[in-house]
């Protein structure tokens, strides 16, 4: 067992240990701190994985694409845990959640973490599906955690749509097996992703197309592509903010990751063309519709949720275009969007607790009333709007160049979508940051949320916009080569 394997085992077992351990801790203060500590150890394990990775097995594999996302996921889970320290404490103070439910929270949170890690390191399309399904289950309950009528309803909607999506993805997975089985023989080989990819050029393109359609509609529901997106705004708006952050920043990525594993299989096949076209189509439609919908949002968290749909659309186009530029843009966008969007939800959570409202019309003049919060809040929004120096700027420019290179009309449509989205985000941001502040009742309990997680996210997003470290670039190159 080499070090890589130890890292992998650690990564997958730590959440279990943490979940079991935290299930036994009754005191919220300690539990919240411990939770952050556990998340940090997971992050360390994930980092370790980046430095020494195990040999692929039939169940697990760590490649460049995995490593683009594993440390990121672990990092965001860690910062989310850090953020929830202050956030949930305030929720307990104000009675929005009960202290005894915190144990459930931690268990579910860790099982979500586990399933996400499992999905990322899986080398088996079945395991990956199970992992994504588990993640869905855990998050459904977390989304409904406030148990208000709205929250339960959002959770139910999420559950229903997500389950159907998951079911369709399973059908796609089975079809993939069907396509691989004649070449790789019955049994585990035909479900081992790395093996499937090796023989993909000889697979029946029609069966692959069919499989991809199911994967696209299935995982696409979890990604939030329009018109499969309906659960997403509700779930993000009603979930506790740390959960919204994890949903937008991580879970969507995981679903995208699963879909892209499918696309990588197709990359070597003549069916690749259809996969690319469909991704571009879904991406573009999602982008443009979400951009328009952003204009009419009145709720801060729904705004952010729609912005996630928009960004997923951008990634869809990027990965659909593919090639060195397109895939790079997609990967960078994926990474930075996770950081920025989860950061934005941190900022939103803090704002909502401070002002006691999540209605955009009630948030005004933040830069005058809460200057320190406003700086980070504004920066996060600007980052999400794709302004420099944050990484989304880099990825969007690269993408636009790649898109225009493919077809000038595609570039034009993309630019139109991006411009509308930009207009909407800035319109809302400007109203929230500037002008005379609205008189909101002061919070009944002090809000003690650390700004460090958000600042960290923004700093990394900014660095990635200007400089992609050599190691990450190495991982990305692997992934780009596979994405085709």
């Amino acid at each position, binding site marked *: 067992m080499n070090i890589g394997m130890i890292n992998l085992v650690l990564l997958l077992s730590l959440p279990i240990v943490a979940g079991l351990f935290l299930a036994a801790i009754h005191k919220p203060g300690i539990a919240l701190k411990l939770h952050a500590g556990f998340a940090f150890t997971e992050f360390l394990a994930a980092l370790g994985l980046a430095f020494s990775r195990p040999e692929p097995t039939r169940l697990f594999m760590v490649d460049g694409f995995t490593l683009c996302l594993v440390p990121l996921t672990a990092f965001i889970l860690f910062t989310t845990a850090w953020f929830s320290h202050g956030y949930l404490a305030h929720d307990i103070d104000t009675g929005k959640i009960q202290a005894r439910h915190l144990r459930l929270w931690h268990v579910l949170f860790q099982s979500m973490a586990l399933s996400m890690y499992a999905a990322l390191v899986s080398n088996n399309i079945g395991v990956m599906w*199970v992992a994504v*399904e588990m993640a869905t*289950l855990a998050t459904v309950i977390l989304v409904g955690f406030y148990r208000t009528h709205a929250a*339960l309803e*959002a959770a139910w909607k999420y559950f*229903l749509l997500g389950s159907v999506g998951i079911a369709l993805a399973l059908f796609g997975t*089975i079809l993939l097996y*069907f396509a691989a089985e004649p070449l790789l023989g019955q049994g585990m080989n035909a479900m081992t992703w790395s093996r499937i990819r090796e023989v993909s050029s000889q697979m029946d393109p029609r069966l692959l197309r069919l499989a991809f359609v199911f994967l696209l509609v299935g995982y696409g529901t979890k990604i939030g592509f329009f018109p499969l997106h309906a659960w997403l705004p509700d779930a993000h708006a009603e979930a506790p903010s740390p959960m919204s952050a994890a949903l937008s920043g991580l879970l969507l990525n995981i679903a995208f990751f699963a879909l892209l594993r499918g696309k990588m299989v197709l990359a070597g096949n003549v069916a690749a063309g259809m996969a690319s076209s469909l991704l571009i189509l879904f991406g573009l439609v999602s982008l443009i519709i979400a951009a328009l919908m952003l204009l009419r949002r*009145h709720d801060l968290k729904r705004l952010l949720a729609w912005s996630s749909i928009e960004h997923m659309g951008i990634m869809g186009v990027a990965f659909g275009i593919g090639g060195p530029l397109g895939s790079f843009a997609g990967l960078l966008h994926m990474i930075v969007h996770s950081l920025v969007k989860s950061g934005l939800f941190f900022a939103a959570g803090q704002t909502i607790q401070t002002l006691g409202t999540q209605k955009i019309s009630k948030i005004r003049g933040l830069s005058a009333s809460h200057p320190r919060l406003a700086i980070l809040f504004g920066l996060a929004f600007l980052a999400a709007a794709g302004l420099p120096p944050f990484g989304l700027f880099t990825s969007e420019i690269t993408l636009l160049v790649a898109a225009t290179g493919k077809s000038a009309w595609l570039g034009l449509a993309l630019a139109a979508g991006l411009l509308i989205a930009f207009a909407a985000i800035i319109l809302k941001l400007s109203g929230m940051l500037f002008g005379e502040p609205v008189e909101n009742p002061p919070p009944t309990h002090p809000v003690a949320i650390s700004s460090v997680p958000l600042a960290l996210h923004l700093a990394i997003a900014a660095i990635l916009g200007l400089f992609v470290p050599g190691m990450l670039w190495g991982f990305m190159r692997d992934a780009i080569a596979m994405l085709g």
Partner: protein
Amino acid sequence: MNGFENDMAHTLSGVMLLMSFLLLYQRRIPGLIHAFAIQAALLGIAVSWQAVMQGEPHLFITALIVLLFKAAFIPIALLKLIQRLSVPQAVEPVMAIGRTMLFGIILCGLSLAVMQSSPQASALIVNEKLAMALAIVLLGFLIMIARQNAVAQVIGFMSIENGLVLAAVEAKGMPLIVEISVAFSVLVALAVFGLFMFHIKDRFDTLDTASLENVRGEELP
């Protein structure tokens, strides 16, 4: 694998598809539940048949789960739920039954067409089975959207799952089926649990899903 074994599997799938149509046809909730139970039982038999045919004993576990959980436990639980709520037992069809049936037939045609378009040299029959599984999945989906009733929706969902399990067991030698079906059962359980939670906890007096959708979007400013 000889002809008879295939024919048997084929027949079972065919009957399951028929049950899907029956599900579409039901106007009353108990009827719906009964039809589903039968479909689940048929699935259990089909899985067992595959277990025998492929010589894969672990498939029996799947069969057992299907039979116990879906063909027995869930239908009973649902029937109890309905009795306790004593709500009107009619399914509120959003789409006229006849039209739904017609649409279902089109869906069957579509699944056949999709599968025919991929004639893998070795496995024409497999394709046909897959087509039936796909048709069951699509019909389950159709139930979910054509009936505005929470029980009907859950049953539609479970019917989708039946199709999936059928497809999975028919894939020769597909590993992890057990794990997948267990995972799926959890989903189903959660669905039923969700139903209970909503309808018993809040004492709704109807199963019309419209009551689940008060807070559909966001409030205006």
